[in-house]
């Protein structure tokens, strides 16, 4: 089993873009796009194995070495702070992690005067670090989805979330007030795998780098 390279990939758009990118360096994993409910796929001839996992679980599989490589958003990496290598920015899946608030509040709000605020987010660790560095006390409400709802129903004044086109924000009467980070998709690598399989993994990294 150890001469296989295992890659953990999350479902959805990242999966499609990843399959396309890997195809460019001769790694064929179109099988993953089929309707099968299988969670693990093997390409015997290319000595490759693919696992379909939840995006937030990708770093865990890779950190423990259950997968050698993983593909995951920088947002998840920032939030989890795992002990991993992230050698390559794959450049797709671009969005921004930002602070947003209702348009009405933004009109007379001055972020430099924030001192004690309540924020709803999927990213409590990033949020806490970001505001701690600015000396702002935050009360964080951890949510798992539909973050934009929180300010509309008075759960929090502001949110920290990802935005790509800004359409969801707009439709819910929110505006972006501060950008925390620019987010793209990353290739991550288990530390032991990079050492024990460095030839094959370096080839993949260098191959992908040329395509980006």
């Amino acid at each position: 089993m150890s001469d296989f390279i295992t890659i953990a990939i999350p479902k959805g758009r990242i999966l499609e873009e990843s399959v396309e990118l890997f195809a460019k360096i001769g790694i064929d994993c179109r099988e993953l796009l089929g309707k099968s409910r299988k969670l693990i796929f093997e390409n015997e001839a290319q000595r490759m194995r693919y696992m379909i996992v939840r995006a937030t679980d990708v770093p865990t599989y890779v950190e423990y070495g259950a997968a050698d490589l993983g593909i995951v958003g920088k947002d998840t990496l920032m939030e989890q702070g795992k002990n991993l290598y992230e050698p390559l920015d794959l450049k797709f899946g671009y969005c921004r992690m930002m602070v947003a608030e209702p348009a009405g509040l933004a009109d007379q709000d001055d972020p430099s005067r924030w001192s004690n605020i309540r924020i709803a987010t999927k990213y409590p660790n990033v949020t806490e670090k970001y505001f701690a560095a600015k000396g702002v006390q935050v009360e964080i409400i951890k949510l798992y989805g539909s973050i934009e709802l929180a300010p509309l129903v008075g759960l929090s004044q502001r949110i920290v979330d990802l935005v790509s086109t800004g359409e969801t924000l707009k439709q819910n009467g929110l505006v972006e007030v501060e950008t925390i980070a620019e987010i793209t998709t990353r290739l991550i690598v288990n530390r032991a795998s990079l050492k024990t399989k460095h030839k094959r993994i370096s080839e993949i990294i260098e191959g992908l780098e040329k395509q980006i």
Partner: protein
Amino acid sequence: MIFKAENSKENSIPKGVTDFLPEQADKIGYIEGKICRVFELWGFRRIITPMLEYEDSLSLGMDDELRRRAFRFEDRQSARLLAIPPDITPQVARVEGMRMSGFPLPHRLFYTGRVLRHVESQSGRSRELFQAGVELIGLDSPEADAEMIAMAVEVLQKLGIEGFKVDLGQVDFFKGIMASAGLEAGTSRLLQEAIARKDSSAVRLILEGAALSDQLKEEIAALPRLFGGTEILDLAGRMVRNDRSQRALENLSEVIDILAIHGISEQLTVDLGEIRGLAYHTGLTFEGFVPGIGEPVCGGGRYDGLMARYGAAKPATGFAFNVLSLLQGLESRPEVEASKRMDLLIFNQQEDRRDALAIATGLRRQGISVARDIIRRDLEDSLEYARRMNILQVMIIAPDCGARDEVCLLKVADGTRRYVSKEEILAGNGRDLLG
């Protein structure tokens, strides 16, 4: 919430610690035994350090991260803060400074022990680590560094591990580049974090805004990719300009040359962007990686600054194995499995126990492990017990078993029986008889 097989709170154990039942404990003992044997063969002597230290004294020898992870509490006797050591090396350094500074050099010391470290909750990681390591104090020559790596390789080979790699680093290579860049502390820290993650794009982003020469930018930007085989050294040598980094490369290649004499070459990889433990290490560093195990199984390197913090400035190098991660990789190997087996269970059906005890004593003298069943029960039940306890054979002593003065040997695995005389067993060839 109601759990099935509910444990009362009093009977549970804290998160991140484990009871090791005999099967696993035997395997841990087997692995530690192999490691310690190699340490002894290289002339190292055991040292035992206490489970408690004063926190301030222990902290002298730890970086911030390790200090944060120590278990600490107040001492009722002295009202000072105590810590349970999260690492044994600072303790060895303290002992060296306090007690051994007059001894002739070099000191070759080894230890096995358990340390405790806080971990993030729900990470599934153990808070208790089993370490087995060495410290070589008083030598600054590359041969001393090579000795550490050669010992690590010997242990991994003796444990029968295949495909492992020992990854070499040299923190002075990085420090040399950063010193000539002279960046302010904040930028420098960001760069360091990005290089540790091998995040090339973040490194380039940070460099964009920095006031540095193109040459230096190029050197820093290359760090996340300076890993691979020993050929990396030539590449790095052509690229880097400052003396300190060049000396680091020379040191690395000297160590690699000495390792070649030990017959160690193809197991080596080099990573000049590996800068974990930067606050602590001062020269060559290394980690051992085994296919299929996500974390390093051993790690260490040179720490010339540590002894001075305990009042006895001396160069030193050392490393330690993470025994539980080795166990993870070895658990199902036949020879490790075999380490938990016992030879014989004696099942006595006679009223008289003298034969049973005499045979047991005689066989133990021959180095065979023998347990007495003692409980009165059916042969079937005793066999089942032997199977569960990994005992290879059962000896039946009974008046109606075979000829007079014979006992029956029953192989637990396949149930085959053989009859041998008591005399023959006690004559000293028990090992042959048991096969």
